[in-house]
């Protein structure tokens, strides 16, 4: 079980977006979230910025919290924006996959790191997106997941 905390704000999970990404079903309101996992880094900030047009993007302050959100059933997708400090991404991926078999999980990786991309795919990533050149592919994947 992953225990290490991501470096981030020490208070509540951060919510980005205007919060109106809601799905009304049978009189109840269901909020579908885009979960971003990653330490406090330039890369994570870029991912959050790229996803600013989506509603209910959250950046949990710990890996445990990210996993809890991923397993809640309200998650539209999980984006692993950057490395997770002491915890290997593959392990985190596997846990998230075990929690939610059908959850789309996108991993951002450095260009040309084919071995890392293959490993991420083997451990449950839905797709691996290399950055740079742009976040367009990520936004397209998240849009699909939100539908």
């Amino acid at each position, binding site marked *: 079980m992953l225990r290490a905390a991501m470096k981030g704000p020490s208070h509540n999970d951060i919510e980005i977006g205007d919060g109106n990404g809601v799905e009304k079903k049978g009189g109840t309101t269901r909020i579908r979230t885009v979960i971003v996992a990653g330490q406090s880094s330039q890369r994570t900030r870029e991912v959050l910025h790229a996803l600013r047009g989506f509603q209910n993007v959250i950046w949990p302050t710990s890996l445990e919290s990210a996993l809890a959100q991923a397993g809640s059933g309200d998650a539209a997708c999980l984006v692993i924006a950057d490395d997770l400090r002491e915890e290997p991404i593959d392990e985190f991926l596997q846990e998230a996959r075990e929690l939610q078999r059908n959850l789309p999980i996108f991993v951002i990786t450095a260009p040309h790191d*084919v*071995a890392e*991309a293959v490993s991420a*795919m*083997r451990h449950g990533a839905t*797709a691996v997106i290399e950055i740079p050149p742009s976040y367009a592919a990520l936004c397209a994947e998240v849009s699909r997941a939100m539908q």
Partner: protein
Amino acid sequence: MKDLPQAVFVVDDDDAVRDSLKLLLKSAGISSEVFASAQEFLAVYDAAQPGCLVLDVRMPGMSGLEMQHELNLRGAMIPVIFITGHGDIPMAVEAMQHGAFDFLQKPFRDVELLDRVHRALARDTETRARLRHTDRIRERLASLSPREREVLDLVTQGKANKMVAGDLGVSQRTVEIHRAHVMQKMEAGSLAELVRMMMAVAP
């Protein structure tokens, strides 16, 4: 039925690569067959032959990714290890999304490839064993009478004999007899085992 021996199929348009891989596999005691093109391999491929595939991505004519697509269309489950000298992330992701076992970039160390091959062969053995198991269950299911099948479906839903009797409009004693036949034909030692069998063949 006894399994055919496992083999590694190498598909690469480069003569030198084919020869060196054949030698490497031979040195590790692994039998292999080499092919210069995807078409050559597909023309003789027999899904009953256990093994794994070492497949070059870029080949003239049909590429490795196209050949993987063709194998998927044929329902082949052979583990595929892609090898390429010009791999990129979108290519690797596509291959993995379509079920590749692994994706290795050239140059790779001999030990790396052998490790992947051993794991792919182990995966193939597991898959074939699982399929044989589910085939046996399906054969047993096919041997049940329609009434026995109804009883099986209801008892594996957790219904007691009395409830099954009520649902089917027969006596409890009749259900008991059908249930005994089901257990015998399915070769199940317990209700839990019967449930596991049904889960194994569930769509």
